[in-house]
């Protein structure tokens, strides 16, 4: 773990050069241990692919104290990733109607549309990071066969619930927003609902799998086309 200054009230710890479920799990464990050790003097934390940003209250503590606590909290454990995080299954209505890039992606990959859908469902994905917009979870890794580059021209408007692929990442858009990811389906489950507790079905460190549903089931679950 390499610790760097981020600002006068923040520091960042880099756990690895490359993300992996093991690195992700180590970041989670370190975050939990640090919060237990430092409590109120930690204002916020941001878990990402291979790093942990810690924002502290500089009137209560300082860079050196947080750095020491972070070293103490650093998890050396090499547990397998499969026993970490909850498994959350998200329903997806995959179709050309709900996923406008599905056939182009299949064509580029040399696969049938059904094969793309199958491969997307086969994998268990790790929630590596949450950011970009409230409730936007970066999920990895997508099978190499269906990895796809971002669109040359991003869409001005991606619908809420859009299930998308960019490189070896996949995600569900929590709200209508611009976006350049390849859209392959729609998920009726809200990924961010400010009026609900918890407001998100997943947190960083959880695992996600996708399950194909029919058009009727999608509509019955509150999905909108």
């Amino acid at each position, binding site marked *: 773990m390499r610790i760097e200054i981020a*600002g006068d009230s*923040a520091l960042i710890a880099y756990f690895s050069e490359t993300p992996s479920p093991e690195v992700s799990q180590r970041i989670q464990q370190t975050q939990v241990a640090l919060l237990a050790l430092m409590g109120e003097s930690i204002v916020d*934390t941001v878990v990402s692919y291979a790093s942990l940003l810690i*924002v502290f209250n500089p009137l209560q503590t300082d860079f050196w104290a947080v750095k020491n606590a972070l070293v103490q909290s650093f998890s050396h454990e090499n547990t397998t990733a499969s026993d970490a995080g909850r498994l959350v299954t998200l329903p997806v209505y995959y179709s050309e109607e709900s996923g406008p890039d599905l056939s182009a992606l299949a064509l580029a990959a040399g696969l049938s549309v059904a094969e793309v859908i199958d491969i997307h469902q086969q994998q268990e994905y790790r929630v590596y990071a949450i*950011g970009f917009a409230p409730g936007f979870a970066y999920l990895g890794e997508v099978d190499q066969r269906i990895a796809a580059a971002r669109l040359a021209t991003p869409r001005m408007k991606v619908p809420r619930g859009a299930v998308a692929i960019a490189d070896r990442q996949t995600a569900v858009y929590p709200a209508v927003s611009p976006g350049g990811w390849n859209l392959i389906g729609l998920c009726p489950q809200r990924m961010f609902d400010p009026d609900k507790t918890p407001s998100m079905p997943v947190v960083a460190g959880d695992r996600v799998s996708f399950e194909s549903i029919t058009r009727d089931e999608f509509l019955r679950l509150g999905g909108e086309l």
Partner: protein
Amino acid sequence: MSLTVKSPGMLSLIQDSGRFGYHSIGLTTGGPLDSEAFYWANRLLGNEADAAMIECTVGGLKLIANVDTVVAVTGAVVEVKIDGQPVEQWRGLSMRAGQALELGYAKEGCRCYVAVAGGLQVKQSFGSCSTVMREGIGGLDGDKLSAGTVLPIKPSGTTPLKRLPVDHRPRYHKSVTLRVVLGYQQALFSDLQKATFFSEPYKVSASCDRMGYRLEGAAIATNETALLSEGICLGAVQVPADGQPIVLINDRQTIGGYPKIGSVIGIDLYKLTQLMAGAEVFFSAISIEEAHNELHLAHCRREKIELLSIE
């Protein structure tokens, strides 16, 4: 117990001290861009330190008091009138029910803070009522104020009228120096690039918002561009491939993937966020130890300042 927005001016947002502890679901901090002016507006009225008020950018706000109350206007230098009569900033101002408070347009700085005794009564979402328009969160409906909006006020006792001595009022300049602690990817920047960053002037570009201040000047691009996305803290100086620095502020996205040379220290940020397009920025380096010292000194000095009573 309320105020009515007669005109919202250029951009008026409800802000408390910000939203903390929710980066894990992707929610940004929000909060007042000038935390100094925000602090003084509440302290002048004897409010809680994080009581909600209005942040008005550039000016043009007009409010009607629907109850006898006390208000304070701090921040950017602006003409303030109550029922057409010019009044002073940085002090408590009595208003009777039916009177109008009117802000002109900023002459120095660009963000004014309008607080009311007791603070605005706004429902919190995720522990704060700070408005972040991009996320549609905070304020009354996640949006800026509009004409006709009624803003409820929290009940408060009698508020003695106080003023901040002139010598202690922040001044807003068109050329500022911001202190930066080197950090994050500083190792990716060469000594020459760092020397350039700390010696050349940068100009505030026209495309600045509550997410970040884009600057224009000598380019300091690193060759390294493919970073894994990572957390971004307040004041982080991000340098995209064109080498033009962007200082990320209150409404920044929580994670991003551009190289960062370090961060502007918290107590200097208001100098930046009060600047309008075309203003000049210089950067100077400060160690983390000095930055912590400066912060504590500034905090102690501020606590010790005594407000003057107005007869």
